[in-house]
């Protein structure tokens, strides 16, 4: 086997070929997930001061917008109640240092940064309590940052 004018060992050539094929499969499966399945990844949003006001907006019975603000050492809002089957747009920013935002069991994984906003959509089809952890070190109280999303259990007031 000739390569760049050099005699290449046949086993070596096969290894090279295998590596290329494996790589191509990896790359195409990745593109498939992004494209065909429209997998959700964090989206860019232009910063605006209004994102610093934490709130939950109900658009209709199954569509919500959550404006989440991370700060040393808690999330606002820290408890969100939504019905089963809801689709939620999360907008995330930080009031101070960098924080993490990870919804356990939902693969929603974002960084909260001062002066920046991230958006990610998630659908909640199963009832339960979903914990949100801060997974970036954010100072002495980092290990206490937790919030929860409660799906399918309305509180008494509602």
């Amino acid at each position, binding site marked *: 086997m000739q390569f*760049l*004018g*050099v*005699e290449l*060992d046949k*086993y*070596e050539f096969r*290894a*090279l070929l295998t*590596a*290329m094929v494996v*790589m191509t499969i*990896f*790359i195409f499966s*990745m593109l498939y*997930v*992004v494209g065909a399945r429209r*997998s959700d*990844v*964090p*989206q*860019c*949003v*232009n*910063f*605006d001061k209004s994102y610093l006001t934490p709130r939950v907006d109900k658009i209709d019975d199954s569509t919500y917008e959550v404006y989440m603000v991370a700060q*040393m*050492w808690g999330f606002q809002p820290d408890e969100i109640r939504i019905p089963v089957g809801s689709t939620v747009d999360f907008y*995330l*920013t930080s009031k*101070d240092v*960098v924080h*993490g935002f*990870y919804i*356990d*069991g939902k*693969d*929603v*994984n*974002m*960084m909260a*940064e*001062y*002066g*920046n*906003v*991230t958006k990610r959509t998630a659908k909640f089809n199963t009832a339960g309590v979903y*914990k949100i*952890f*801060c*997974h*970036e*070190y*954010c*100072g*002495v109280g*980092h*290990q*206490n940052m*937790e919030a929860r999303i409660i799906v399918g259990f309305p509180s008494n007031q509602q």
Partner: protein
Amino acid sequence: MKISRWLRNVILTELFIPITLLIVGIYHGLMQTVYRAGLIHQSSFAGLDYYQGLTLHGVINALVLTTFFAVAFGHATVAYFLKVEPRKQPTKISMWLMIAGTAMASWAMFAGKADVLYTFYPPLKAHPLFYLGLAVMIVGSWIPLFDWIGLLKSWRASHVGEKVPLAVWGTVINFIIWFTCTLSVAYEVLFMLLPWSLGWKATVNVALARTLFWFFGHALVYFWLLPAYVMYYSFLPKLAGGKLYSDLVGRITFAIFLIFSIPVGVHHQFSDPSIEPNTKLTQSLLTFGVALPSFLTAFTMFATLEYAGRKNGGKGLFGWIGRLPFFDSSRYLFSYFICGLILFIFGGFTGIVNASYELNAVVHNTAFLPGHFHMTVAGPVILAMLGMSVHLVSQLKGKKIFAPALNTIVPYLWMIGVFIFSAGLMWGGLQGEPRRTNLGLSYLNPKSDLFHPQWVPDTLLTLCGGFIMFLAAVFFFIVFFGTFFRKQTQQADQLEFPVSEALHDEKIIPLFNDLRPWVILMILIILIAYIPAILDVFRFAGPGAPPHLPGSPVPGL
């Protein structure tokens, strides 16, 4: 080969200082597993805070030790293979800058004024001397590159028609990567963070700082790895009793690292705001380009080992494996290298998981990540560094290895420890366990409202692995310091390496004997990958952030 006294002393100093500091790094590694398993529910132990210790662990193990070692080993490699010593003046200046920088940063960390972890993401703010120290250390590590390039030029002029020694090809490439990638972090530290931490600038652009950091941060991991690769290609075949399967593959491998190491840093920012999905996807794809040389290396190493095993008399499909010198204390470097290679198989595959744009969302910043990279940086990287340090000390000081049998089993014990440790962390990570967190205070504390019992088994497994790693490290320190301080019995100032021949020693290809075209290609790919990232950051990012100390939600210096 005999080397000058002054060069010997520089190399020994650049090994002794970081390995002494490593005692602290290793101690706190064990402590991290203890806190995380919920054995103690405290913010600090024996005067050292969890996050202060974690900063020391990351900075010492991953920045200081690796940089000092790469420089020391680089001097040894260049001197040995080109048969000329580096110039005295710049070599000493480089050493003193690195020592001064390390001293400044260490003071800030030990004084508890820099609990910001080794990534020092703003707006968490450290003491200005922490930033200055890191910058000075990095600048110190740049100097040798320019000296070595000069030596290589004159070598080429007097060796027309000869291939640049593979080890030198790898070493110089590694330092070109290092110089290029550290430019961005030097800019971040000197022009953004330092004036800001001194109060001369009110705010800092967080997204830009992170992007500049990761321009450096991923190439950093190859800067750790390439000295180990130099050893694998140049020494492992000889130690195994065979020859390097192919010399050309080694050269291709290093060249691919040169062009793809840097333009992939955004894969650490898949979860970040203000970088467009397309920019992220591009760099994710480029990351697969940089996995290629490791595939090539895996094949070449196994082919090399099989060749050696058969030459040693091994028969049958797997019979050759038993004929490798696993427990030969006179060839202990083989043990260090082979354990690193085995760990790296798993480090590599988990790395591919992290690098995949969508899969990354499952694991980003969970305990999966330290699970992955202890099989790389605390695998092939540290094992190659530790083994080679013992080798260099014994030769340069003319000492026999202290406790040679112990020395031979250290890497095996370490490997077993890392496997158990990483399995625990990755298991935890897949259940959402966060990294960089003193779990013992909240999630692993039955008295806390946040108690999360699902993470009990995996953190205990991590603790077991961490303890075995710690034990292996203690044995290593006994061997290293025992060798360093025992009586001299052999000729000192010697520098010898187990240099391998190549089985397929392909004829010279000009493209793989000249770095210039590769450097140009590197710059081009970096521009293509990074211009969009920087533009995104400026397009989306809002106001800059004022500084915060780790202890207070109120901004302030």
